[in-house]
């Protein structure tokens, strides 16, 4: 029962990650999940947590482009992976269209679910530039939000998708 007291090797683990485009090396207690390493070792506290059991989506980040739950991802398994967090979403001083849309259209109230929602939405729009409202709701169905009732989140994602498409046409 007293598992925390088991005699185990308590040496630190060491991995290399690419976080928001930058290579970082990090040492950490090997029981830590990606969530804990991001927040506690790399001070990237933008990624949130609401349950740490896979039940809320607050901790969602992109790992090699895919939205995953950092609370259920062993940091050990991320060696060499490319991680995108909310801190890396803006391009310099310019907000990513998703960020702009969320702050303009009510997609973020208390803001606590927002990083997870934004990264999940980015994962969606990177693959599907023109999702229907239904598709947006499906893609975000692993992110609980307690404030917005989701409607303005969906509005925001749809708006950002439009902006991104228009930019794509211009470019």
């Amino acid at each position, binding site marked *: 029962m007293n598992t925390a007291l088991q005699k185990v090797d308590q040496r630190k683990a060491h991995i290399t990650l690419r976080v928001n485009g930058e290579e970082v090396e990090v040492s950490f207690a090997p029981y830590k999940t990606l969530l*804990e390493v991001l927040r506690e070792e790399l001070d990237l506290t933008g990624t949130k947590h609401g349950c740490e*059991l896979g039940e809320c989506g607050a901790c969602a980040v992109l790992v090699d482009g895919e939205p995953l739950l950092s609370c259920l991802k062993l940091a050990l*398994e991320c060696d060499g992976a490319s991680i995108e967090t909310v801190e890396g979403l803006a391009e310099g001083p310019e907000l990513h269209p998703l960020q702009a849309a969320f702050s303009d259209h009510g997609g973020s109230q208390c803001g606590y679910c927002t990083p997870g929602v934004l990264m999940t939405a980015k994962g969606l729009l990177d693959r599907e530039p023109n999702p229907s409202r239904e598709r947006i709701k499906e*893609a975000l*169905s692993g992110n609980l939000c307690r404030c917005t009732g989701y409607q303005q989140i969906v509005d925001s994602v749809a708006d950002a998708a439009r902006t991104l498409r228009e930019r794509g046409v211009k470019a």
Partner: protein
Amino acid sequence: MMRLPWFQYQRPASVAEAARMLAAEGPRGMLIAGGTDLLPNMKRRQQTPATLISLSRVEGLKKITNGSGLTLGAGLTLTEVVGTGAVREKYRGLWQAAAQVASPHLRNMGTLGGNLCLDTRCNYYNQNEEWREAIGYCMKKEGKTCWVATASKRCLAVSSTDTAPALIALDAKVRLVSAAGERELALASLYNNDGINYITRKPDEILTEVVLPQLDGWSSTYWKLRRRGSFDFPLLGVAAAARMAPDGSVLEARVVLGAVSSQPLPLAKASEFLVGKKLNDEVIAEAGVLAASRAKPMDNTDLDVYWRKEVVPSFVGYALREIRGDDMRAMRMRISRQAL
């Protein structure tokens, strides 16, 4: 923050190496694939392996072989399974089941193999250590009594995998590999009706692939009951597959229930009953009643236990009507809250 206990970590590169490590660790070791079942259980101290043997870098577990039938590597994520054209087109029941597991993020992480080996669930058991201490634990871990049925000699925790019933209806087999050798067995035989010893996989075996037979002329479907359109484990799964004659009469059928027992429940009687009949409303209703007589939901998941039993015929009905070719899209939206 809920945190994992300390553990040792090994990362083999091949199935053979993984099998050797698993054999060497014995019961102290556990495989980790996506970790979406195991890690929450470890954080709650339900499962406390001393060593995790990771399948993340094991070669070959993501193979998809499209010959006669279809072979799916156990390491495919559920998202990858859903994205496989052959699954969507020919094994629709599996596609629908996989698409309804957990949430999009969890499907990006969770694997097919992990889904088939998923620990049984019970809301006296899927709780933090402190909570379980407050009830004096239970038979499945560290305690003596089964609180769901205190007279029960066995644990009644629920088989909660969505893909297993769908795959059993599709007559799937699984390949198990250990340091000692390998074997293939019908997926249905992978399970026991026992919440503790729910799986016949030996502790040193690795599930490497799922083998689906060629199923020309079959149609299949999966209906899932859960409170919400996302996250929730099944409270009832109905998988059905059938091959029909041109006149609409059933030549072969398999109906399997999920989440109403400690194992996926193939319904031999109801399936046989359908053979030779046309799927008219009366036949469907009768099959539903037959199915319900086998379902033994327990008061250890969400929603009222009597109600869960009572709606079995309706859900069997949705499945058989879909097989018959009815347009079930509106009902699907109401039940699953997404188009499938």
